[in-house]
């Protein structure tokens, strides 16, 4: 089945901001996870719901799960799972006691598809860190979501919140007040020891994500404010691409990785 990637949604988002709608209905196509997250946040930002884009693209996967869960309009803790994918609503400002068991289920799915324990451990570490960041750093009562999808020996995970975003968060630390743009803030946030908290021992949340994609043939897309950052480690030529998109609240991260290099060109 053909896929709608996040690039298509970026273009759609610009159209959406001009007041047009229902431009995306393409039958028999499936949204990638990054596309599903970008679309959900774009619709939220525009004050629209899923009906604004028609229903024909709902062909399973993460978009289907998000529609089922009702995020971001529902704020109650909730989990939905399909055969190879799962989505969990992370409540705002509450303890997320169920996260570990959700991750254990993800690890079981990963192992069942042939992933080694080392691979599964690396992904779980990154997953829990990113999920924990939503509750700790989004600074909003609105819920966030975390999800995974295991497809063709690769796992793709998403983390999305509708909070203050990386720039505002980092600028709470006097050391980072000079930061002016979301792109600058995102670049800074990926460095070790960088945090909105000034106390030592902070700012290591992204290290597990970077390790997972670096060691496991991965790719990550980070999106906050107007900035996007794509880290591609799926080939020996490691690249880092930055760009600008319509503004979104919070931080959205999608990463994909596998124990072996992807068999075809990897896209999100």
């Amino acid at each position, binding site marked *: 089945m053909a896929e709608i990637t996040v690039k298509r949604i970026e273009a759609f988002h610009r159209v959406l901001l001009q007041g047009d709608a229902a431009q995306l209905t393409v039958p028999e196509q499936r949204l990638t996870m990054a596309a599903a997250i970008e679309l959900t946040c774009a619709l939220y930002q525009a004050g629209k719901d899923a009906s604004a884009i028609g229903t024909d693209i709902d062909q399973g996967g993460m978009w289907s799960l998000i529609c089922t869960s009702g995020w971001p309009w529902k704020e109650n803790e909730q989990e939905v799972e399909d055969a190879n994918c799962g989505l969990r609503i992370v409540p705002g400002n509450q303890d997320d006691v169920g996260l570990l068991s959700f991750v254990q289920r993800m690890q079981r799915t990963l192992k069942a598809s042939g992933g080694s324990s080392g691979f599964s*451990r690396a992904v*779980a570490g990154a997953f829990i*860190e990113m999920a924990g960041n939503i509750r700790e750093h989004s600074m909003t009562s609105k819920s966030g979501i975390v999800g995974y999808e295991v497809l063709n020996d690769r796992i793709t995970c998403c983390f999305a919140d509708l909070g203050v975003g990386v720039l505002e968060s980092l600028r709470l630390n006097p050391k980072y007040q000079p930061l002016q743009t979301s792109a600058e803030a995102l670049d800074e946030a990926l460095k070790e020891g960088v945090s909105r908290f000034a106390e*030592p021992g902070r700012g*290591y949340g992204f290290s*597990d994500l970077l390790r997972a994609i670096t060691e496991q043939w991965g790719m990550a897309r980070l999106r906050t404010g107007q900035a996007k950052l794509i880290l591609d480690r799926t080939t020996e030529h490691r690249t880092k691409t930055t760009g600008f998109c319509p503004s979104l609240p919070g931080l959205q991260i999608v990463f994909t990785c596998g124990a072996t290099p992807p068999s075809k060109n990897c896209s999100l």
Partner: protein
Amino acid sequence: MRRINLKDALGSESLVGRSMASEHFPKLVALAFGGDKDETIIWDFGDVDLATASYIGGTFVPLIRMVTSGKLARYFVFANLNEHCQDEFSLVFEAEKLAALCLQEKEEGHGGDSKIIGHLDPAYRDTLATVLAKGRVSAAMLEGGKERQDKIKRTTRIKRLTTLVSQGLLRRMKVGREYVYEATYN
């Protein structure tokens, strides 16, 4: 010497995230303060599958800072870390400019390889390696070794040894008129 099996003590084989770190930190502080002054605590990660950087940043970084600031008179050894955990410790300790002794035991309490993880200047690393190899030394005893050939002054050697003591990497005791330095574990 006291061994703390972290999986048993904390009830989890996954030590992950900042919120879990905040929850576990008081337990770890209580465990560290239990027992005798100046004792060596072996934090046994043998049954721990996963320890993430932010967890370490929220637990063992402040604990080690309590040791290096003199608020906690204990010596720490981290034992049986798997590759993933060891990488995470190295990353955090390098960034925080801390160092710790890491031990890979062949079986509990018997033998194994030791190494330093984290940030330690090569000169200090060499001095520590010498003490670990010899078991117990004084500054005067080091004069007969490799450092003598390097024409390093005795005051420099003493400074290095003292710094390693303040970092909790060596134990020091007074024997007669001089200080003797030894590894923090047997």
